[in-house]
C-alpha cells in the first residue's frame, strides 16, 4: 500500500475538569478540531491563540502525551491512540519530536547536555558504536549552527537560552523526524534571538524537508515564518488557511480582533488611546461554558444565532481559508 505521509487530526475533543471549591466544571479544552498536514510537502503550520485556547493541549494530543476523548489522530496511516507496543511507540517518536518552551526545563540540570544527545542516538538505534554516535550528534548540532566541541562536557546552566534551545532542537533532529511539534519555542527567548530560531525552522523546512507545527501566541513571528495558520479560541479552530492571506485580511471576527490588538514596533502605527470604560472579559471558564460560538460574548458582529448554535466550517470563496463563523455561511 502506498505510504500515507500525512498527519490527520480528525474531529478531536479533549475534556478537562476544573474544581471550583466543591463543584466540578467540565470544559472542552479542545473541541472537535480537525487539521491535516501533508508531510510530502513540508510546511510550517502555526497554531495561534491566546492563553486557554487549547493549542498546547492539541500539541500534547498530537505528541501522544495525552489521549483524546473523542476523535482520532492518524500519523502516516496509523491511529496513534491505538499504539500499544513499545516498537510502535518508538517508531512514532522517531518521526515526531517535540521542542518545548523552556529550554532549561527540557534538560536535566544535574546532567551534561550530551547525555540526552547520546541517549537519543543509542536508543533509537541510529548508531551502534560511540564513534558513529558522535558523528551523528555532530551533524545534528551542525544543522542548528553549533559544534560538538562547544557542547561537550557542559551542563545546561552554562549555556544561554538561545544556545540551549538550539541544542534541544538538535536533539530532536538527531533521529531524523518528519515533523517537529514546537510549543512556544521562542517565547522565553530575547527578541534578538527569536528570529534566529525561527529562521532555523525555515531553513530546516527547506533543507531537511522537515515540517514544523509551530505553536505560539505571537502573531508577528507566525506571520513571518508560516505557510499556513490555524487560529484557536477556547478549544475551537476558528480559522485555517494560508498564513499571509489570513493575517493580511482576517475573516473571523476573533482573528480581526487579534490583529487589531497586536501592537507594532512602529511609531507611525500607534494603537493606544484612552479607552472608555469597558466590560472586562469574562473569566476563562465562563467563556468555555457558553453555548454557541465562544466569541459571541465579545464579538462586534454577533448575531442571535451565534449565541444559540455552534457554527460549522465554511469555506471562503476567494481564498483557501476555512472559517468557523456564521457570517460566512453560504445562504
Amino acid at each position, binding site marked *: 500500500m502506498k505510504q500515507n505521509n500525512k498527519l490527520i487530526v480528525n474531529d478531536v475533543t479533549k475534556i478537562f475538569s476544573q474544581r471550583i471549591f466543591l463543584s466540578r466544571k467540565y470544559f472542552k479544552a479542545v473541541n472537535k478540531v480537525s487539521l491535516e498536514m501533508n508531510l510530502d510537502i513540508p510546511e510550517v503550520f502555526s497554531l495561534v491563540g491566546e492563553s486557554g485556547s487549547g493549542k498546547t493541549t492539541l500539541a500534547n494530543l498530537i*505528541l501522544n*502525551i495525552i489521549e483524546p476523548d473523542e476523535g482520532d489522530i492518524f500519523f502516516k496511516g496509523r491511529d496513534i491512540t491505538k499504539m500499544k507496543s513499545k516498537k510502535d511507540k*518508538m517508531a512514532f*517518536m522517531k518521526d515526531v*519530536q*517535540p521542542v*518545548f518552551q*523552556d529550554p532549561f*526545563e*527540557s*534538560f*536535566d*540540570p*544535574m*546532567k551534561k547536555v550530551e547525555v*540526552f544527545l547520546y*541517549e*537519543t542516538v543509542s*536508543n*533509537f538505534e541510529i548508531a551502534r558504536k560511540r564513534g558513529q554516535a558522535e558523528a551523528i550528534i555532530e551533524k545534528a548540532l551542525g544543522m542548528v549552527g553549533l559544534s560538538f566541541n562547544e557542547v561537550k562536557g557542559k551542563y545546561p*546552566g552554562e549555556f544561554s537560552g538561545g544556545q540551549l534551545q538550539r541544542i*534541544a532542537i538538535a*536533539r*530532536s533532529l538527531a533521529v531524523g523526524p518528519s515533523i517537529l511539534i514546537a510549543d512556544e519555542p521562542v517565547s522565553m527567548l530575547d527578541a534578538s534571538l527569536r528570529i534566529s530560531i525561527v529562521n532555523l525552522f525555515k531553513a530546516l523546512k527547506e533543507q531537511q524537508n522537515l515540517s514544523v507545527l509551530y505553536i505560539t501566541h505571537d502573531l508577528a513571528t507566525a506571520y513571518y515564518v508560516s505557510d499556513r495558520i490555524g487560529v484557536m479560541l477556547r478549544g475551537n479552530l476558528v480559522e485555517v488557511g494560508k498564513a499571509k492571506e489570513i493575517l493580511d485580511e482576517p475573516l473571523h471576527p476573533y482573528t480581526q480582533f487579534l490583529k487589531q490588538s497586536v501592537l507594532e514596533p512602529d511609531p507611525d502605527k500607534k494603537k493606544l488611546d484612552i479607552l472608555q470604560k469597558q466590560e472586562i472579559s469574562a473569566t476563562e471558564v465562563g467563556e468555555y461554558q457558553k453555548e454557541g460560538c465562544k466569541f459571541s460574548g465579545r464579538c462586534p458582529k454577533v448575531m442571535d444565532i451565534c449565541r444559540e448554535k455552534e457554527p460549522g466550517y465554511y469555506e471562503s470563496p476567494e481564498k483557501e481559508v476555512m472559517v468557523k463563523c456564521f457570517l460566512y455561511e453560504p445562504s
Partner: protein
Amino acid sequence: MVKSLVGELVKRDTRFRTGFILMIIIVFMSILSFFSPVDPYSTYYAPVNRPPSLKYWLGTDSRGQDVFWMMTFALKNSIVFGLIAAAVSRLIALLFGTISGYIGGKTDSVLMIINDSFITLPVLLVIILIGMVFRRLSFFPLAIVMGLLGWPWDSRLFRSQILSLKERKLTYTARFSGMSTFSIIFKIYFPHLVPVFLSTFINNMIWSLGLEVTLSVLGLTNLQLPTIGTTIYWANQHQALILGVWWWLAAPIAGAIILFTALYLLSVSINEYVDPRIRYQQGSF
C-alpha cells in the same frame, strides 16, 4: 557526587563540620573495638566498681568489665544497628514511593492505603509486643524489624518527589529520547533523590537508635550484647547511681549524646542544602 556534596558542606556549613568531626570521633571509637584486648561478652575479669584511672580510662563496672572497651563495642553495635535499620527502611521507602509515584492511578491508591496503615501503627507498642512474644529479640532481627516499621513517612516523601519530577519537561525529553521507564527512574530521577535519601537516612538512624535504647533500657533486647541501651540497663539493674558508680552511666549517656548530636547536625545541614531554592540559586545542580 556524594563526595562533592560532602566537600561543599564541610567547607560552608559550621554545623556540618561539627557534626562531621563528632561523627569521626565516634567512628574512630568503634573501629578501636576491633583492637580490644577484652571479649565483650566476658564478665568479672576486672576489679569491680573502680573509678576512671590511668589503667581503666573510664573505670570499671559492677560486672567487672572495663567500661572504656565496652563503650567501643557499644558504639560500634549501635552504629551498625542504626545503619541496618536505616538501610532496610530506605530501600522499602524508595521502592514503595517510586512505584506508587510513577505508576499512579489505582496502584498508587492501594499502595498509599497500605502505607498509611503502617504510619498509624504505634511502633513502640508493636515492638514491645514482638519482644514479649519472641522473648528477647536479638540484634539482627531487631534491626530488620525496625527497618520494616520505619519506612512509611519517607515513602510519601519520595513519592512526592517522583510525582513532581514526572511532570517536568525533562521527563518528556527523556521519553522522546527513547529512554525506558527503568532508565528514566534510575538514571534521571534517583540522582535527584540522593540528597533527600541521605537526610532521611540519617533521620532514620536517629529514630531507630532511640528506639533501641528505649527497648534495651526496658530489658527487651539481647542483654549480653553491649550497646548504649544495654549498658544503661545493666547500670540501672546494679543501681549504679545509688552505689556511686556514676561513670558506668555517664559513659553510655555521653556516647549517646555525642552520637545523636552528630547525626542531628549532619541531618539538619544536609536538609537545608537539599532545599531546591538554595541549590538553584547557586546553580550547582
